[in-house]
């Protein structure tokens, strides 16, 4: 029954997200995943809600809301939890942005059994959609001391094995 519900959720996500090509306002999840995803802002509600408060460079506090990146990876059937052992510990998540910017997390950094790092894919700030140039999707890493991984205009998440 549990699997049927999970399957139904996944089908719902797919039905919401595969209607259009990758592009404006969409995020693709691919690479070492069991189920590649194309996520739209409308489909975001299918993932686990998450929010965090974070200061900007000027020191002003903002509330970001969106979904847990971990829940996206879980939906994409990425090796997490008990599967994250052995060679899978060499895997990372590469996040790509529209301007070419890229940031990286190890899967273990994100997994609750290891680093349990909170990373959010936000689509709203202080209750409003993210502004042009920063949205529709922004990565929020509230526990990072530096702001550099809080990337704007996220368009791709790629799971890969580290080489060497």
């Amino acid at each position, binding site marked *: 029954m549990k699997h049927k519900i999970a399957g139904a959720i996944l089908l719902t996500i797919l039905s919401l997200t595969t209607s259009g090509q990758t*592009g*404006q306002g969409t995020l693709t999840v691919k690479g070492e995943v069991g189920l590649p995803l194309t996520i739209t802002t409308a489909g975001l509600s299918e993932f686990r809600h998450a929010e965090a408060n974070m200061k900007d*460079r*000027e*020191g002003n506090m903002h509330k970001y809301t969106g979904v847990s990146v971990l829940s996206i990876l879980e939906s994409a059937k990425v090796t997490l939890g008990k599967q994250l052992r052995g060679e899978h510990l060499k895997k990372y998540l590469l996040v790509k942005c*529209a*301007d*070419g*910017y890229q940031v990286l997390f190890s899967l273990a950094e994100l997994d609750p059994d290891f680093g349990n790092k909170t990373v959010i894919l936000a689509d709203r700030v202080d209750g409003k959609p993210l*502004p*042009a*140039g*920063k949205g529709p999707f922004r990565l929020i890493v509230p526990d990072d001391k530096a702001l550099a991984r809080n990337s*704007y*205009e996220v368009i791709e998440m790629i799971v890969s094995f580290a080489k060497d």
Partner: protein
Amino acid sequence: MIYIPADNPLTVAGVELGRKLFYETALSGNNQLSCASCHKQELAFTDGKQFSTGVDGSSTKRNSMALVNLLWTDNFFWDGRAKGLEQQVKFPLEDQHEMGQSLNISSRKLSEIRSYPGLFRKAFGTATISGELIAKALAQFERTLISSNSPYDQYLAGKYSPDSSQLRGMKLFFTNPQPEKGIRGGACGHCHSGVKTTSQLYHNTGLDTIFTDGGRADVTGQTTDKGRFRVATLRNISLTSPYMHDGRFKSLNEVLDHYSDHIDEQPKLSPFLKDLSNQKNTKGLRLTLQEKEDIIQFLQMLTDSTFIKDPRFSNPSLISQ
């Protein structure tokens, strides 16, 4: 990170062949243009023109980009349409408005020049010339165009003492302004980051509100990418005027004036240029004349006089004559 494809390692023979090809006019449809026509060593491998002239007499769409430190680059052109140097070099060779000759014809012409089959055999183990091997040889040579002996490099190595203006300029270049703390900055280093003074990113720098050139959007098809162009290297920047993708600025002063005083605050403007200010409740960097001059003095520290005279990069046929 360096970018050398596994199937095209740098070899002495490959680089030498690439160097010869870089200056080879037989690669153009009218036998008059080579890569070096638009990438002159004395101008840090640019051509000093707003737009370059192709074999058909027409002008290129965009300003010729500097060829420097490409070993650390894997996306090319102002719009990033080429991934890897091997792919990049094919565009100008075959573009009808640039060198205007197919790689098949180039291969045939080179095969008929006595020296080339042997040079290809030496470089790649075959005397059969192909477009792929022409591209590989050119890519090998271009990866050797490394500029690392500017006064800035010497300063980083502890061998050069900048004057006070250069030091002020360096600080401004790498500082983001924080008016609430009384910190002034030019915020240049955010995009022109690190010792490479570039990043492989695409930004709208507030040049236009109506885009006659789609820039990055021409590649991605995304309207949000309209007016975005590649962050250019600032290595040897004082030698590579005019500036911007369309060569609209003739001098560094004009560039500094733009970033300081004339950025068009529009929705597509890079978020890294939005709301930059050196004064509370004021838009724009509003750098002083002295601050602009100091930044230019720092930029001139990026001129590598040995790079533009290095015989390893010059026309081999001129040396042998």
